């Protein structure tokens, strides 16, 4: 019974024909259901009268694991709503979290798993620009809502080919505009030194800033980038200090944010106005540097920092602390990632309450027609608004300055859309 | 055989991995004797020594002065007084000559004794004394062989295993080396098992000898008996009786 290559091919073909004849695969849409009545024909996969299934993709392993805390805040919120409020509109929320290790191919795999195997109603948060970019074509082809993605890239709002994908947090370009606006008022001829992370996030914010100061007296005196794999940004900080700039824009993620703040504090010959971006403005970033070293630092915020004593008696914050202790007992509620998760989950709650049809199409339309929706964990005056020509749910931020042991908000809430006009590509 | 058997090997098999090299070797060596192991290449001579010092797997029994050695680790056997000068001399190349010698005394305590032993070794091998600070790797082949034997003696061994001490040495140097081995044996009553290609030399200093072929002992006897054996003479001594 010697098998030649030809024989091998013959066997293969036979088997192939046999399998093709007897078994087709389960069609991709098995389990896919549609609604009747007024919402007829719309997809109801993953949602029933008593349940909603959502899927999120976060880095739980690898170098970006810090963000793995966000889904814990979300889960705590949903657990609370499920147990005490009977779910969202009577529907208990199930939130499935998958790990992509911040790797795009893994994100694609997990998105497919969530949609095809877990049969989720929607992808609720994919974290990071690369992972979201790798998955949004798929989500939109499958017509699965990919909502409130955890990245501030501006393309989620400006793109028109992916109606099923939408962001949540203020985009990095808008944030840059807030800082530019502040400088135009305070230091109209500022010379700015910029430290930025050499990836989509840092580039987006830095480019946005450059565009926003175009035509003003403000100039970029020096720029330095770093890679996430760098051990330290100290060399970059030394080079920036030599520029003699009078403003320092710190566009970093937490660890590097602390390093840059510490380097600025150590250098007693260079004392610029220090603006740290929102990502690194958490108390948990400032505290290791020492509060005495970060006095007068400026940043912008849109949600409440649980470490900030001014929210001590805020009802939403009190609820947050109480329910976090109850539903996420091991977690420290002071970690701002938990609060972020709480805020975004609450935002989903509001959006879900506004849907006309409890379908995927209904959710897509609801998150694209938010009208001044208030969410307790967002700063007073910061609301969610979207529309046919507005794909950015949150576009308002408020400036704040560090004083004593907390941030002090100052000035009005800046609605960047009103202030600078809508963001376009 | 000798009346007072110091090293007793019974039914010893040994090898590497799946390959068995020794097949049930029996022999005994008297206290203070020099025993030569002869045989063709690949007969298992080196494996026999490695089996004695625990570097290969073994089956059977090895007793040194009544105490079992088989299936102990090499370092444990070394601590029981067996010094093995391996094929290729086992020099610690990057270390100095003095450090090599001191390593021989690694298992011993008592600083004074070690210093005295260093002097004793210098007595046997004066050339080493002039090179104490030199890196051992820079020594010539003969000097390295002296160093290896000196290192072995530093442990005050009860049993000295020498593997091909003449390998790669000039005839004059070899002769000198064997003379010293004889002296050591006489002065310190150290029992010696020597594996040697050069059967003449080995038989000159040995009291008894064994011929190993394909992992089995094929001939045993006193050095003179072996020398007189026609077969051995033909195969290993290069002449007919």
């Amino acid at each position: 019974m010697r098998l030649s290559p030809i024989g091998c091919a013959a066997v293969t073909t036979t088997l192939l024909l046999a399998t093709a004849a007897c078994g087709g695969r389960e069609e991709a849409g098995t389990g896919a259901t549609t609604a009747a009545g007024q919402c007829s024909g719309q997809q109801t996969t993953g949602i029933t009268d008593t349940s909603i299934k959502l899927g999120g993709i976060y880095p739980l392993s690898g170098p970006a694991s810090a963000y793995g805390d966000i889904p814990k805040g979300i889960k705590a919120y949903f657990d609370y709503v499920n147990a005490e409020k009977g779910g969202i509109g009577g529907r208990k929320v199930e939130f499935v979290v998958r790990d992509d290790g911040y790797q795009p191919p893994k994100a694609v795999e997990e998105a497919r798993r969530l949609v095809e195997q877990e049969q989720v109603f929607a992808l609720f948060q994919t974290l990071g620009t690369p992972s979201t970019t790798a998955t949004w074509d798929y989500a939109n082809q499958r017509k699965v809502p990919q909502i409130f993605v955890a990245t501030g890239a501006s393309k989620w709002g400006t793109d028109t080919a992916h109606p099923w994908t939408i962001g949540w947090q203020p985009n990095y370009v808008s944030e840059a505009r807030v800082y530019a606006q502040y400088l135009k008022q305070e230091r109209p001829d500022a010379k700015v030194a910029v430290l930025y992370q050499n990836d989509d996030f840092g580039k987006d914010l830095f480019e946005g800033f450059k565009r926003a100061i175009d035509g003003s007296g403000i100039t970029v005196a020096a720029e330095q980038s770093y890679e996430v794999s760098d051990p330290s940004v100290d060399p970059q900080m030394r080079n920036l200090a030599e520029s003699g700039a009078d403003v320092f824009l710190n566009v970093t993620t937490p660890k590097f944010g602390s390093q840059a703040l510490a380097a600025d504090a150590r250098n007693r010959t260079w004392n610029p106005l220090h603006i740290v971006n929102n990502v690194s403005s958490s108390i948990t970033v400032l505290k290791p540097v020492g509060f005495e070293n970060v006095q007068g630092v400026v940043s912008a915020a849109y949600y409440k920092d649980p470490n900030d004593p001014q929210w001590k008696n805020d009802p939403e914050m009190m609820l947050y602390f109480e329910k976090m202790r109850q539903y996420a007992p091991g977690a420290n509620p002071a970690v701002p990632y938990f609060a972020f998760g709480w805020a975004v989950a609450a935002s989903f709650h509001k959006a879900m309450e506004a849907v006309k049809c409890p379908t995927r199409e209904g959710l897509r339309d609801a998150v694209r027609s938010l009208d001044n929706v208030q969410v307790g964990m967002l700063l007073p005056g910061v609301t969610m608004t979207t529309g046919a020509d507005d794909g950015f749910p949150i576009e308002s931020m408020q400036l704040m300055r560090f004083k004593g042991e907390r941030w002090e908000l100052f000035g009005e809430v800046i609605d960047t859309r009103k202030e600078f006009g809508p963001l376009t590509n | 055989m000798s009346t007072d058997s110091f090293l007793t090997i019974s039914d010893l098999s040994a090898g590497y991995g799946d390959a068995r090299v020794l097949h049930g070797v029996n022999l005994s060596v008297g206290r203070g004797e020099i025993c030569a192991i002869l045989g063709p290449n690949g007969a298992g001579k080196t494996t026999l020594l490695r089996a004695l010092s625990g570097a290969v797997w073994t089956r059977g029994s090895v007793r040194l002065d009544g105490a079992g050695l088989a299936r102990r680790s090499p370092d444990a056997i070394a601590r029981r007084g067996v010094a093995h000068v391996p094929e290729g001399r086992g020099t610690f190349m990057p270390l100095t000559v003095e450090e090599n010698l001191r390593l021989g005394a690694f298992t011993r305590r008592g600083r004074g004794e070690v210093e005295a032993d260093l002097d004793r070794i210098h007595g046997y091998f004066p050339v080493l004394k002039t090179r104490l600070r030199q890196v051992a790797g820079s020594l010539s082949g003969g000097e390295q062989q002296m160093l290896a034997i000196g290192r072995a003696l530093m442990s005050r061994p009860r049993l000295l295993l020498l593997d091909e001490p003449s390998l790669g040495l000039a005839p004059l140097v070899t002769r000198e080396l064997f003379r010293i081995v004889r002296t050591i044996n006489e002065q310190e009553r150290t029992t010696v098992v020597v594996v040697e290609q050069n059967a003449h030399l080995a038989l000159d200093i040995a009291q008894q000898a064994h011929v190993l072929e394909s992992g089995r002992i094929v001939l045993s006897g006193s050095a003179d008996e072996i020398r007189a054996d026609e077969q051995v003479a033909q195969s290993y001594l290069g002449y007919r009786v």
Partner: protein
Amino acid sequence: MAGFLQQLVEGLGAGAVYASLALALVLIYQFTGIVNFAQGEMAMFSTYIAWQFTVAGLPFWLALVLTLAVSFAGGMLIERIVIRPVEGAPELTVVIVTVGLFIFVNAAAGWIWTFLIKDFPNPFPGGAVEAGGLSVGYSTLGVLAVVAVVMGLLYLLFQHTKVGLGMRAVAANPDSARLVGIRVGWMLALGWGLAATVGAVSGILVAPLLFLEPNMMGGVLIYAFAAATLGGFDSPAGAVAGGLTVGVAETLAGAYVGFIGSDLKVGVPLAIILFVLLLRPQGLFGRAVVERV
């Protein structure tokens, strides 16, 4: 000129940090021929232990001593439990085991202490020595001094103690070391323990500068590799010299070579390594390995 000297000093400070981890890498490589990918993560874990001690209220120096002791024991334990079972396996298998250890320790640290950054007490005062326009931070001086002291202690250990001699014998010729009665297994475990201790020192030096979090040592490890390659993987003194060279080269290139800029400065140690290896494949201080047919 003062600016140049200042950059030089800063480079030396960064280099000392790389050198300390490179030293730990070299210690293990010398004895086992294994590049321990988990070295940086082990150092990070040790640093967390030290942090835990200080948070519990122990004075810094006591916490340091305890941490070094725990790290030493931990290093030996890792050798006994994790590395020993694959001792006879191909070298690459052992290397991959250390990769597994890397992933494990990193994730475990995040699991136990979260990924939030922690501030670690700086054992050195904050000021700086000012001289002729040059300002040398006490912490830079401190790091350099600690690395020098560690080097000195290692030198004493290896050159002037019996254990050190035994360890060097194992590194030079493990088979022969066995034949003179050295317990090679224990010496290897001792080597791992020692490397873990030196690594702990490295982590504790790094933590006040970079802030403590589970990925703290990832970037440092790359530079430590470069340092060890440059100095020769079998030479502790070379590792230190290599570390300082890499630190200075990286800093100067980032500051003065316009085209390179801060984003490509990681290419500088790469270029150095490549250049050195092409001229001297065994590293600056390493011994040539001659393979016989």
